[in-house]
């Protein structure tokens, strides 16, 4: 490579320090060797600049220009080869710089001159957008003005200038109206500790495009927008374009990842008790129950207004017809003379007594004889009011005195023992005991007893005491003999609440599947499909094992239903797509097409359904008050009373 080609006198590169070119270049086809000076004056008015050596001026013309001339300098030091000066021309770089500066200043001047004149604004001070119209706003923002979003620019020329040097973004404008939980600039307003890199500086305009017209749905985002992050996050090898081709498979047990909190065996109820033949394979079903059984899924599940969860109806509406009597028939037995109850043992252990079972019962009874309810309340502490509510001290004293004399308590009205409430005397098993009979579902006293022992089990640091409490709780939740038959259905939910990671889990109520804030599946749009289109019984699954065997871990739970797979959704959610230009962005939107008859499994919905990401997923999972937001009216440069309007 010949580097001489890039020498300062060879290269055509416009050097910043050479602001002028020789004016003779065009005539001579080359510049003179001196060239213009920095001020743009011709430097080649003579062949050389003679220097004086002794009494003689010497010619200094360089060798590349011919060397010293024959005649030599004049006596006054002038070169003998004088030329008229040329008119140096500005270099192209200089012209570019001048024009760029002029254009910049011109734009600034235009902004300054016109943006601030009231004559160029409307009656409310909004500048006419002729100069800077980026396009019509969407319908959602149709009543907004420039300064609502472009807050740093406002509508004055000064603000336009200062905005160029200030740190601001459009997201500030968005957040003045739209509120989100967490950091609105973080991906999904959430923190992903294991995710690298951290995405904490997102802008609203990364997904939402304005100025594309009133018909634009600003909430929509193309699959490509999601793909920007999730293509890598999902380890996809190509861009996310559609549901069928790009979406990963659902998780193995979707949507039954966590165990139910209430033991209800759909398969058994349907198979054994429901009326219609289509529900049961058991021909000789119990006619008594069959008359009371449900006729369809919606008999028990509340479909109206269903979102992700189609919650079951209440116990009274669904279960009481068959199970109400079981609640009544299983009393809470605190103590018996014949057999010390685990409840009493646990209560005594909590007070520090180390009596054996027999002494415990007799000692307690003796104390009860002397002090009425006081010995019982001493064992239950602060919870006594809830745990012994309704227990008559007189009745307890009478029973205690009788039991102290080793006599049976005389029952004034034996049939009264079947009523709800506290009783002393002979229970259903014929034992002399202090027991409580529940009145109805959600009986507050039995709930209080169960919750008391749950609390004591969780809070006990003494392993022996904790064991006593757990034993008492187990007796309460026994599926066949437990008080109020609570444990028959609620045992697994209550035991889950005892686990270390049980924070937030309910003891009693129906617990929906784990809430997926970015995938809020809604049953509503799918309500025209039959339930068994998606929810189908799993064959050969020991569904009851988890509920009946306390040692079974939640992770080993097996649903009675088959998991829902991606294929099931893609029956309907598929489409051909078309790229549509919206404003300055191109979006990938589905084209709705009629479902071909030969492919039709979609039942009543004859159309293909959109498979856009946002059809099923919600980016803003933590949006405050998604139904409305504070709406500000800010008139550019002019304060106007701020009103907060909450949408209905």
């Amino acid at each position, binding site marked *: 490579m010949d580097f001489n080609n890039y020498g300062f006198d060879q290269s055509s590169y416009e050097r910043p320090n050479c602001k002028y070119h020789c*004016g003779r270049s065009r*005539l001579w086809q080359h510049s003179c060797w001196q060239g213009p000076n920095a001020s743009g004056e011709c430097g080649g008015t003579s062949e050389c600049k003679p220097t*004086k050596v*002794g*009494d*003689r*001026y010497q010619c200094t013309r360089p060798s590349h220009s011919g060397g010293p001339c*024959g*005649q*030599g*300098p*004049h*006596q*006054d*030091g002038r070169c*003998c080869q004088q*030329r*008229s000066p*040329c*008119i140096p*021309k500005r270099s192209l770089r200089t012209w570019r710089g*001048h024009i760029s500066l*002029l254009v910049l*200043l*011109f734009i*600034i*001047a*235009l*902004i*300054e*001159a*016109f*943006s*601030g*004149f*009231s004559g160029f604004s409307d009656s409310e001070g909004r500048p006419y957008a002729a100069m800077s119209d980026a396009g019509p706003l969407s319908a959602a923002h149709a009543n907004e003005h420039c300064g609502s979003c472009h807050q740093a620019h406002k509508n*004055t*020329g*000064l603000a336009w200038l200062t905005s160029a040097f200030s740190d601001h973004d459009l997201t500030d404008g968005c957040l003045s109206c739209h509120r989100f939980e967490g950091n609105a600039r973080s991906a999904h307003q959430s923190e992903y500790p294991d995710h690298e890199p951290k995405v904490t500086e997102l802008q609203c305009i990364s997904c939402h495009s304005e100025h594309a017209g009133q018909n634009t749905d600003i909430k929509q985002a193309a699959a490509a927008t999601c793909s920007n992050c999730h293509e890598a996050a999902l380890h996809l090898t190509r861009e996310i374009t559609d549901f069928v081709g790009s979406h990963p498979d659902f998780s193995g047990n979707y949507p039954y990842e966590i165990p139910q909190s209430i033991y209800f065996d759909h398969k058994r109820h349907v198979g054994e008790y429901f009326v219609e033949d289509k529900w049961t394979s058991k021909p000789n079903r119990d006619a008594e129950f069959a008359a009371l059984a449900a006729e369809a899924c919606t008999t028990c599940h509340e479909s109206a207004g269903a979102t992700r969860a189609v919650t079951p109806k209440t116990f009274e509406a669904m279960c009481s017809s068959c199970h109400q009597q079981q609640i009544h028939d299983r009393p809470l037995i605190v103590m018996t003379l014949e057999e010390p109850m685990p409840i009493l043992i646990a209560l005594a252990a909590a007070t520090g007594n180390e009596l054996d079972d027999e002494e415990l019962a007799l000692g307690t009874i003796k104390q009860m004889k002397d002090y009425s309810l006081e010995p019982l309340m001493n064992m239950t502490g602060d919870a006594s009011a809830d745990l012994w509510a309704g227990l008559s001290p007189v009745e307890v004293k009478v029973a205690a005195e009788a039991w102290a004399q080793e006599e049976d308590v005389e029952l004034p009205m034996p049939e009264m023992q079947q009523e709800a409430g506290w009783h002393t005397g002979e229970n259903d098993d014929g034992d002399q005991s202090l027991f409580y009979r529940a009145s109805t579902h959600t009986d507050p006293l039995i709930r209080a007893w169960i919750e008391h022992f749950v609390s004591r089990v969780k809070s006990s640091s003494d392993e022996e005491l904790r064991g006593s409490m757990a034993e008492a709780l187990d007796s309460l939740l026994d599926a066949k003999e437990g008080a109020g038959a609570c444990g028959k259905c609620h045992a697994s939910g209550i035991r889950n609440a005892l686990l270390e990671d049980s924070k937030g889990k309910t003891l009693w109520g129906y617990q929906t599947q784990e809430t997926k804030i970015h995938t809020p599946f809604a049953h509503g749009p799918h309500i025209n499909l039959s339930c068994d289109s998606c929810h189908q019984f799993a064959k050969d699954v020991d569904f009851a094992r988890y509920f009946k065997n306390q040692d079974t871990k939640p992770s080993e739970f097996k649903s009675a239903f088959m998991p829902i797979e991606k294929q099931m959704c893609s029956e309907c959610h598929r489409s051909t797509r078309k790229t549509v230009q919206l404003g300055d962005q191109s979006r990938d939107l589905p084209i709705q097409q009629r479902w071909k008859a030969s492919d039709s499994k979609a039942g009543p919905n004859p159309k293909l359904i959109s498979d856009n990401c946002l059809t099923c997923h919600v980016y803003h999972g933590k949006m405050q008050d998604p139904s409305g937001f504070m709406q500000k009216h800010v008139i550019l*440069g002019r304060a106007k009373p701020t009103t907060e309007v909450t949408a209905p």
Partner: protein
Amino acid sequence: MTTELLLSIVIPVLGGLLLIILLVYGLSMLLQHLRQSYQLTGFQKQELSYLKKRFDRLSPEQTEKANRMKWAWQGHRKFKICNKVLEAETICSFYLAPHDERPLPPFQPGQFLTFELQVSGQSKPVIRCYSLSDAPTHPEYYRVTIKRIPPPPKDPDKPPGVGSGYFHNQLRIDDIIDVKAPSGNFYLDTQSDAPVVLIGGGIGITPVLSMANYLADNGSRREVWFFYGVSNGLEHIQKEHLNTLEEIPNFHVRVCYSDPLDTDIKGEDFQVSARVSIELLKQELGVNNYQFYICGPPPMMNALTSDLAAWGVPESDVHSEAFGPASVKKEAVAAVEGVQIQFSKCGRSLSWDGSHPNLLTFGEDNGIGLPSGCRAGNCGECMVALRSGKVTYVGPHSATIESGSFLTCCSIPDGAITIDA
């Protein structure tokens, strides 16, 4: 609120002003560009004017050259003495007009005329060269200025100068003489614009006076220094004319009297009471970036040429006129003694003894008839054929030498030679 109101007024006004300034600036840039375009046209005109000036300057020279070629003559031409002006006691100017009344060819300022004089008492025509003392800007006449040469002061018995005496004593107005065309290589470079120093010593003023007149008549803007060295006012010629030259801004005339008379007034008749020397030149010139033209007596010329060389003036910048025998000896050449000089026509063979300055005097002293003229290598009259051997020229010569011949007046043998004489 007040600040906001103020800003809402000030900012647009400033913006408007800036806009106006920018528009004016943009317009001025446009005008400047147009003006530069116009200037570029002017620059091209300037370049053309410069070229035209050069062409105009070359054009007369080309015309002169053409005329010189056109009107030149070969051999001798009859000229009539049309005027005779006594410049000093021993110096007289002769104005020569062509007898055939045809136009005269222009000459280069500094050249000389070669006269063939029919002097009574002389066995053959006397050949003499005299410089033209006026500028070639007068096409109607030639002028030569001749000093009457007296006998040498050391030897007053010797005869005075034959040629000069003939001019002074015998030629009268309307006399006709034979003249060769102007020749000589000591002339002004008229195409150059370099500053010149013209130095004339005694009657040596004539060629440099021709140069000065040429420059003055053509209105040259070249820097001209004119040094004129004479003994005193008795030899000072063209005094009034030189005073006229002094009045030209770029002319500087310095008259130097080496031996002024009591009647000579310094500052009026002359400026320097000394010979023309290198010290005077250094003092007056300061720098030596000049073209030096020197004509004068041999001592002055020898001294000046060597001193100028010592001052750092390149040899190419020093031009000197050699007139008379051994005018300027730039270097001494020692010929080999004892070589044989064969004269073929007269059949004599002589041995070179090294005591003669040239072969012409060697032959004359040995009684061999050799032609002679200016005796300075200028007129070519002494040219003879060289049959064998080589010669070495010991001095400058301007005459055109034919192939196989040589000038006897300024050469010595380089080994054995045979001369056709």
